[in-house]
């Protein structure tokens, strides 16, 4: 009996794409119905939001395009609805669909910035507290306790209101976005700091850190290159889930009137405006932004739920 060698053994590494396709993470993603649906919804919504200048029928930042004769047009399938106002127009003649597209872009940008900023602050504070311990650890974590003992929404509203008041009047529109990012970050970074601190204080006692210390690696390098990568997975899961929370926080602030101004609307601002016409029959002004916001958050949470389970080592 002879053994036949069919082909040369392949020595090249599989391509990046092939490695991704064979990974556990990809497999658990494809087999999770909620995650696939959520991810598809999310991609469509995000692409549509960022393509707003290309696909929206109207530029909502250009007040010259608003005409009062176009005000209060109902959606196209209703009597009196007309092209190109597919979802109708609001009280100033602003196209609801365009408002939603541009508004989603604003909401997503603010939420992403807030999550990234809180991630950076939280990870650095948590690393420092967990690595050095002692008084610094105590002070930082006591401060975190105080922040956690105030309901987050209250903290964000107060921070936003006080900071808006301090903005110079010419900066109200653009500065508002920065203020909201700051307000959400203020109440959001603590959770990352706690996760990273807990993880770091475990990691720093391990042998590989000891080895690095003996090799005279600088503390900063040990923190950033050795310990940090080992703490990131739970933080990333928390970040995905809090991305949905950040979108909601921004919407809530804008809805309450301490967020984005009407000249640079986010989804929350649109809902705030539409809410005034709830009882006068123009239901479409409020309903469609509400639906868009709900879709966005549900999509994010579907993906987040899956990620939490997929990256949880206990559930594997």
């Amino acid at each position, binding site marked *: 009996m002879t053994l036949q060698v069919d082909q040369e053994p392949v020595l090249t590494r599989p391509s990046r794409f092939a490695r991704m396709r064979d990974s556990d993470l990809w497999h658990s993603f494809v087999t999770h119905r909620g995650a696939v649906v959520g991810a598809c919804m999310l991609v469509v919504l995000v692409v549509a939001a960022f393509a707003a200048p290309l696909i929206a029928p109207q530029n909502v930042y250009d007040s010259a395009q608003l005409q009062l004769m176009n005000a209060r047009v109902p959606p196209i399938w209703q009597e009196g609805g007309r092209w190109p106002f597919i979802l109708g127009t609001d009280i100033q003649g602003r196209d609801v669909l365009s408002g939603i597209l541009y508004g989603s872009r604003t909401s997503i940008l603010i939420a992403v910035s807030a999550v990234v900023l809180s991630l950076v602050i939280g990870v650095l504070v948590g690393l420092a507290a967990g690595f050095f311990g002692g008084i610094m650890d105590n002070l930082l974590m*006591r401060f975190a*306790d*105080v922040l956690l*003992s*105030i*309901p987050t*929404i*209250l903290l964000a*509203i*107060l921070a936003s*209101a*006080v900071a808006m*008041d*301090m903005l110079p009047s010419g900066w109200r529109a653009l500065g508002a976005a920065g203020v909201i990012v700051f307000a959400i970050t203020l109440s959001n970074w603590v959770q990352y700091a706690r996760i990273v601190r807990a993880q770091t204080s475990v990691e720093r006692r391990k042998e590989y850190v000891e080895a690095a210390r003996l090799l005279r690696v600088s503390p900063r390098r040990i923190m950033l290159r050795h310990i940090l990568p080992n703490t990131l997975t739970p933080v990333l899961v928390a970040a995905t889930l809090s991305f*949905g929370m950040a979108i*909601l926080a921004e*919407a*809530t602030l804008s*809805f*309450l*009137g*301490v967020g984005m101004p009407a000249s640079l609307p986010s989804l929350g601002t649109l*809902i705030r405006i539409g*809410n005034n016409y*709830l*009882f006068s029959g123009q*239901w479409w002004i*409020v*309903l469609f932004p*509400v639906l868009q*916001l*709900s879709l966005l*958050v*549900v999509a994010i*949470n*579907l993906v987040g*739920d899956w990620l939490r389970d997929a990256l949880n080592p206990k559930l594997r």
Partner: protein
Amino acid sequence: MIAFLIKRIGSAILVMLAVAFLAFLIFAVAGDPVEMMVNEQATQADRDALRERLGLDQPFLVQYATFVMNAAQGEFGISYQTQRDVMSLIASRLPATLELVFIASMLSLLIGVPLGVITAIHRGKWFSEGLQFLSIFGVSLPSFVIAIMLILVFSVMLGWAPGFGRGETVQIGWWSTGLLTASGRNAIILPAIALALYEITLVMRIVRAEMLEVLRSDFVKFARARGVPRRIVHYRHALRNCLMPVATLTAMNFGTLIAFALVTETVFQWPGMGLLFIQAVLSLDFPIMAAYLVITSAIFVTLNTLVDIIYAVIDPRLRQEKI
């Protein structure tokens, strides 16, 4: 136990001092109150006199100490907007908020617990999976979105319940209640549901998870083997063992609900202290903002401390743990 009590209450007081400091900071960054109170013709001497009368010439820490002392006695100054005493303004709005939060808490238990039990018992059936899927929406959607949808459907389209205000109220001493009149009871339905929905889903998920665990335990198997009717096994034996975490959650979340009620109150124009706070925020009425922050946090911190202490009384192991 006494050491634990002192430690726990001490840390609660520290947290409240820090919160009071934050509230105090609102005034510090908000600009000079003297400039807001005097008129154009006031001379420098007038201003200095007012400054001295308000205690603003004192060092920073002394001012903070004064603020804390006053706050501890319920003295938060006078509203910029209405020129009325802040504490009496908040006291007049407090009953509306507490009633709303109380009814919402009740709803979350009365609806959440049975739903949790049903989805646990009938696990895998279509309605149970459907409820589990729907609960994702309950957790995802912000309360103002739910509130707007409720108004749109039940108030604008169907006209079943009013979508704003509190209806007629009855005054009992300093407490005003809407629960004794028909219009008051009608008016509380929608806001209470809007506020409760998030908590209903939380309670449902917790009860479901706990039930699934308890149903697997030996004493439930034994009860079944003894031939105890299913209903009694589920509702008397199993459910009783799930209620502890639910009680904790409800108590802890009462404070959070008070804070979140401000969103619901805004949508429904419910005349509670949350609505007062939002109006104060929009008109930069700092004394009301500071008072609301201190009072809400005080309720929040007191509840959390109480829950911790009660836990320690029930379970002595927790007293040893570091706080």
